[in-house]
């Protein structure tokens, strides 16, 4: 009898499962690499020297802890809950993504891998990974859909300046999903020498868990900082959800605090028909895409649907498996905000606070703008401002006719 046990059905007790979601749905060729990664990550996680090196980089290189900022003028203009912004946009490279890129970059180096590949949608993970690789002396190849390369051109140039090779992907929808497929094709071919630095809480185990762990600092700091400022927990935490890395990082420390509402904001795009949005919980169904079992926007034949969002980072047909579980258990709520609301939120935040949010993060700001007026002035709402909007200037110039 084989020593590998085959469970009759997916269950919560298995590593890499979030309820029935998650798991490992990959070609057999990748299994040895995923198991090696899981093993090495567990060892590194328990290694004080690894954690100290990571913390030192997060502090001195990336700029942690990030401020928790009371958005006084935004709050006053909405006449409701007090709004705090967790300023991940102030991190080096411009978004929360650097937390994970540094963590996995150190892990790649520790595992003796000289070549790093990654996918990117908005380019924030690509820039963060290119920076981490430059810092750590690793070769870096970034896959990016042709559509995303065009709409996030500035980030393409930044990655190249940082020494990364950016490879355009012209298959399928030419966006994040196709970049992930192409990165997986590269990995399956060069699996013995290459580290795949996945950028969201997606994909096969151990990625969703590992990426979440590297972003847990967001929620931890949020909790401590709010305790220092207000002496209590927030009433709600709001974050945008593409794959879901910034949201799971913000939510995780509050999962046990039942009084804290956790609200994930998906991209409502430009309409409710399949293909016009990226709201997986409104039109998606459980399925397997790119290594994990989660909610997937798909047609009746199980073909993956095209998606649309003004923000490249939310423009993806599936969602991290832990979010799928939090959705089903009701611990987190998932709503959507459309392109127009996100653009309005960019303007609102820019003009009330002098802060230009990334289009992704603007979806969370839009939800805060909807929710705050319905809450009491004594209540507290924290928005995870996951990234800054400099990268979006091309789109903003066009959309807002600046």
């Amino acid at each position, binding site marked *: 009898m084989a020593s590998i046990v085959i*469970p009759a059905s997916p269950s919560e007790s298995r590593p890499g499962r979030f309820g029935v979601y998650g798991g490992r749905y990959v*070609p*057999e*060729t990748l299994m040895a690499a995923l198991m090696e990664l899981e093993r090495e990550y567990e060892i590194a996680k328990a290694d004080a020297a690894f954690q100290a090196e990571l913390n030192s980089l997060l502090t001195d290189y990336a700029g942690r802890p990030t401020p928790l900022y009371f958005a006084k003028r935004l709050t006053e203009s909405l006449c409701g809950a007090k709004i705090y912004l967790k300023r991940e946009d102030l991190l080096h490279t411009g978004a929360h993504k650097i937390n994970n890129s540094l963590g996995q970059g150190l892990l790649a180096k520790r595992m003796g891998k000289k070549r790093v590949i990654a996918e990117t949608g908005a380019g924030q993970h690509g820039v963060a990974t290119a920076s981490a690789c430059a810092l750590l002396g690793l070769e870096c190849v970034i896959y990016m859909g042709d559509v995303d390369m065009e709409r996030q051109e500035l980030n393409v140039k930044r990655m190249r300046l940082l020494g990364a090779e950016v490879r355009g992907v012209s298959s399928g929808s030419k966006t994040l999903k196709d970049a992930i497929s192409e990165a*997986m094709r590269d990995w399956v071919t060069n699996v013995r020498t290459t580290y795949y630095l996945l950028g969201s809480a997606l994909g096969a185990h151990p990625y969703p868990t590992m990426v979440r762990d590297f972003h847990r600092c967001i929620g931890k700091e949020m909790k401590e900082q709010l305790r220092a400022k207000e002496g209590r927990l927030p009433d709600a935490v709001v974050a945008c959800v593409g794959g879901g890395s910034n949201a799971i990082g913000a939510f995780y420390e509050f999962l046990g605090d039942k009084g804290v509402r956790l609200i994930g904001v998906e991209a409502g795009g430009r309409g409710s028909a399949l293909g016009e949005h990226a709201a997986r919980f409104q039109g998606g169904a459980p399925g397997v895409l790119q290594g994990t079992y989660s909610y997937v926007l798909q047609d009746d034949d199980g073909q993956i649907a095209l998606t649309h969002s003004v923000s490249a980072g939310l423009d993806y047909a599936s969602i991290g498996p832990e979010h799928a579980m939090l959705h089903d258990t009701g611990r987190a709520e998932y709503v959507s905000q459309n392109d127009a609301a996100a653009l309005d939120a960019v303007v609102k935040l820019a003009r009330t606070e002098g802060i230009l949010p990334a289009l992704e993060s603007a979806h969370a700001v839009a939800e805060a703008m909807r929710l705050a007026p319905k809450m009491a002035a004594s209540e507290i709402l924290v928005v995870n401002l996951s990234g800054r909007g400099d990268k979006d200037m091309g789109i903003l110039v066009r959309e807002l006719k600046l």
Partner: protein
Amino acid sequence: MPIRFEHKPGLVIYLTAGDPSLDATRAIALAAIDAGADVIELGVPFSDPLADGPVIQRASERALARGTRLRDVLALAKQLRAARPAAGLVIFSYLNPILRYGLEKFAEDAAAAGADGVLATDLIVEEAGEYLAALGHVHLAPIFLAAPTSPDDRLEAIAAHSRGFIYAISRTGITGKQQSLAADAAALVARIRRWSKLPVAVGFGISNAQHVAQVAEFADAAVIGSAIVELIERSTAEAAPGAVARFIEGLRLPHAALTR
């Protein structure tokens, strides 16, 4: 119908169903069987074929653009089974179309269509509990991939749960042609044989008679995929069956005397 390799070496032929049309795939499959293919793998086109190279990606796009659905592929299997009762028939798919169709309904319908086995590209053995049960109920053979990177405990599990044959991947990477067969392949097949008495078919990158002859030295069968799909891409729908038949006949030419 159990999968058998009557010829030496056996030939497994992969076709993307619906490329360029379902009628064309039927004609090509019949021609392939008559030219000596032991097993036909009917590929279910998928929107995001992450284990496939550009040739099969393009074929999948063409098949999907024509509206090819999993139920159509099962109907095609039924026609092939009726026309060629002795040929091996395997449904080859990514997992999501099967899940969407419904695992148990898929197994029942595939068995009713006369398929012998199923290969799900992105399903590893540990995640296959429900799948194995569904296929087992209707006596469909689960065919798993074994990779050069698979450690022995994985090969043991793959061997324990496979029926029909084991598909050994010749090299790390995606599907597609290559110049020479990696040394990985022979070593992998030797390791698989320690755990299984099932026939072993070697695939990925096999595109000519020389490769097939090399595979024959250490394995039971060769799987030809991208080379055939590319040939179909270059041919007209009318010419494709003849072109594929001649190609398959050519694959065994140096070994014609060994045919039982």
